[in-house]
């Protein structure tokens, strides 16, 4: 195993792979740093480029985006107080507070090194656990997969901040999208309304690209002409020099906590459908509970930054485990990566690591190497990153939408995908305006066909419906789905009760 990894690491140094990896990491950092451009958006823009590359080159670029994006978000989060990506929200709490206290350099590098170390701990898990988990995943029959998908949907619907009901409706609407077109078993036409291109069904990638790209771009367009906020502040000169040894020591002098936060990140990453924002938020909350001085959290305590960033970064490793062992995308970013794998003819799933060992270890190597690259790039260009925030939007947005169009078209080489892109662009924007969360919707679209096909397979294999409950793994997964749903309800009730009490006074 280690020989394979060493070989892969050596191979990754070849310019053929190093260039896409570095380019991806840079794109990720920039995209992550740009407020309003998420990692998902960045990876969508990178997707069409990977079509023409060899599979490992394309994946190296995407892994770079993923790692760079999780780190890039922290630059704007700490220095400007604006999370560049949702996963950096928890970093703003203490990071920006510390920066405002006059220690922007320390705050920034605490974040970067925590991200680096958390990511490497995530790598240990990624390399060690993918194989065994893949062997475990082979036990999964249609019943288990069905239950796993139900668990994923119920978790993501329960995690939304607005209202559980709206989260559920959004998730169900995602499933409705996959019902349109044809049935996945016999390809029989259904609900096509006589529209020819719907007969093949709706691919999830154009939907995902449309929903995310348009909802973000249009929300920015909406605000254009208003006062430019971030750009002006970015020009301010900041003293970022800092003693790296001291900062690193500050992090590693409490190894148990670092490992614990990274573990939280990895775990949340492995669970399908829960992204980096939940990981960093949860780790930050944990750090606060474990601390002897919980009152310092939110005022610029280093521990808060370390917790949030190490968890956020390790989360990426966890998500990669899930797509590589189970072939299930944990979030929109990994869904796009899975799409890229499929384009290159690689079927992710329990057999992936055994059949494509070189590629799997190449992905591990890319993940590991992306971290030093990320640190080097931030060391060289953290300040320049702030200037990127002021790229003219009138140039950026049309170019982004053109890349989305190329990505959607090239997926299946058909214009139908571009029309789907537009329709769901409008739908996604409308959903955001109506206050429906996009994450459960997208997950519904990603998993819909798989849920149906596994349900049908289960019934075709054995007509007994109780097998969903009596098969141990499947039963456990369904119980977990119920439990997570109940927990979400309870949590919401508590928050509401607190809000009501506050209103009474």
């Amino acid at each position, binding site marked *: 195993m280690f020989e394979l990894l060493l070989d892969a690491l050596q191979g990754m140094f070849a310019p053929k792979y190093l260039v896409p990896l570095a380019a991806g990491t840079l794109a990720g950092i920039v995209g992550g740093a740009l407020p309003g451009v998420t990692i998902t958006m960045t990876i969508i823009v990178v997707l069409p480029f990977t079509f023409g590359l060899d599979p490992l080159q394309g994946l190296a670029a995407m892994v770079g985006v993923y790692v760079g994006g999780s780190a890039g978000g922290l630059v704007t989060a700490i220095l400007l107080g604006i999370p560049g990506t949702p996963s950096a929200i928890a970093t703003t709490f203490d990071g920006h507070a510390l920066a405002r206290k006059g220690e922007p350099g320390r705050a920034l590098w605490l974040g970067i090194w925590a991200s680096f170390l958390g990511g490497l701990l995530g790598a240990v898990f990624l390399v060690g656990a993918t194989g065994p988990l893949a062997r475990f995943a*082979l*036990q*999964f*029959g*249609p019943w288990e997969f069905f239950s796993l998908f139900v668990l994923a949907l119920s978790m993501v619907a329960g995690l939304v901040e607005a209202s559980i009901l709206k989260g559920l409706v959004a998730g169900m609407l995602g499933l409705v999208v996959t019902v349109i077109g*044809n049935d*996945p*078993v*016999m*390809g*029989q036409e259904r609900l096509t309304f006589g529209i020819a291109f719907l*007969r*093949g*069904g709706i*691919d999830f990638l154009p939907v995902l690209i449309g929903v995310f790209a348009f909802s973000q771009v249009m929300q920015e367009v909406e605000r254009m002409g208003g006062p430019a906020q971030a750009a002006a502040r970015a020009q301010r000169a900041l003293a970022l020099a800092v003693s790296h040894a001291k900062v690193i020591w500050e992090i590693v002098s409490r190894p148990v906590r670092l490992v614990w936060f990274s573990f939280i990140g990895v775990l949340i990453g492995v669970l399908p459908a829960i992204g980096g924002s939940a990981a960093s938020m949860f780790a930050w909350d944990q750090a606060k509970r474990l601390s002897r001085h919980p009152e310092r959290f939110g005022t610029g305590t280093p521990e808060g930054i370390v917790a949030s960033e190490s968890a956020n970064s390790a989360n990426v490793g966890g998500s990669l485990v899930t797509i590589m062992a189970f072939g299930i995308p944990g979030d929109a970013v990994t869904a796009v990566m899975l799409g890229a794998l*499929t*384009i*290159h*003819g*690689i*079927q992710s*799933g*329990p*057999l992936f690591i055994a059949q494509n060992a070189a590629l799997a270890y190449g992905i591990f190597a890319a993940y590991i190497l992306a971290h030093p690259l990320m640190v080097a790039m931030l060391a060289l260009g953290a300040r320049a990153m702030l200037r990127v925030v002021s790229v003219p939007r009138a140039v950026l947005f049309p170019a982004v939408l053109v890349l989305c169009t190329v990505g959607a078209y090239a997926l*299946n*080489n*058909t214009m139908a995908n571009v029309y789907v892109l537009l329709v769901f662009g409008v739908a996604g924007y409308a959903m955001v305006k109506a206050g429906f969360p996009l994450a459960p919707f997208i997950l519904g679209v990603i998993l819909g066909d798989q849920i149906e*096909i596994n349900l*049908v*397979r289960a019934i*075709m*294999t054995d007509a007994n419906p109780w097998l969903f409950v009596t098969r141990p793994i499947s039963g456990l997964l369904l119980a977990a789905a119920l439990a997570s749903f109940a927990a979400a309800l309870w949590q919401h009730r508590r928050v509401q009760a607190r809000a009501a009490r506050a209103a009474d006074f």
Partner: protein
Amino acid sequence: MTRIALTLVLALAAPLCALAQYPDRPIKLIVPWPAGGDTDNIFRPFAPLLQKQLGQPVVIANVAGASGTRGAKEAKEAPADGYTLYAVHDYIHSTYYTGIADVQYTDFEPICLIASTPSVLTASPKTPWKDWQGLLADAKARPGQITVGATLGSTSHFFPALIEKAAGIKFKYVSYEGLAPRMNAILGGHVDLTDANLTQKAKVEAGELKFIAIATEKRHPEMPNVPTLKELGVNVVYDVNRGLMVPKGTPAAVIARLEAACGAAAREPAFAEAMRKQGTDVRFMDRATYAAWLRQNDELTRNLARDLGLLKR
């Protein structure tokens, strides 16, 4: 700066000036299945060889979905100028007769046949049978309970259905579209049997899978210890044949150019070597032979579909 701009203008305008000497721009080869499937694996090594003959890039475009019929439709509607090729296999007949698609082989002009992949009846390692006799006895004892993973209405469904008929047994079909999901299911023991091919040889040698029998006339040199269905008394010979077609109405000169290029590419030793790795035999037919063979195969599939009770037309 001006020079860069000029180069850009020229690059954009170049195809307008160059007058038709086919082919003068990249050619799209539609593979109607996802990348990484058998068809894709066979045409991917073929594309660069064809490219060498034609002098223009041959780019594979996977237009997957709806049991391969989405790509078929896309290819049928493409302009008949020779810049869109269509990688086809026997499913074109079966999806038409089982009513899954409206596209049939007569919507295209055949170019050549290049490869033939024999089917192998493959069993999960978790099944108790050691050989065909064991399977047969069990199938007789438990009719309709042995599960087979298949793409319904396509070749992986026809093959076990033929065995059912020839041996007088009954299977239960579970829908698993594509070889990769079928392999996951069969390795995990979630289905008992499936139609596979010699690409799975390594797993059989590692003891993770069992080849029950191969559907060739004679034992295959790659796996001489696997019996043929014929010698086991089951009169089934089945393989999947893959070729190239273009939309109807393509100019004769273009077709001739493509046919010549295809013939030369299929005879390359590199192609034979690539096919050996795919558990596939090179089987070249020129345009005329292929057209006659297609007519015959279409009739055969129609009869099969009728015998199996799947005929919808």
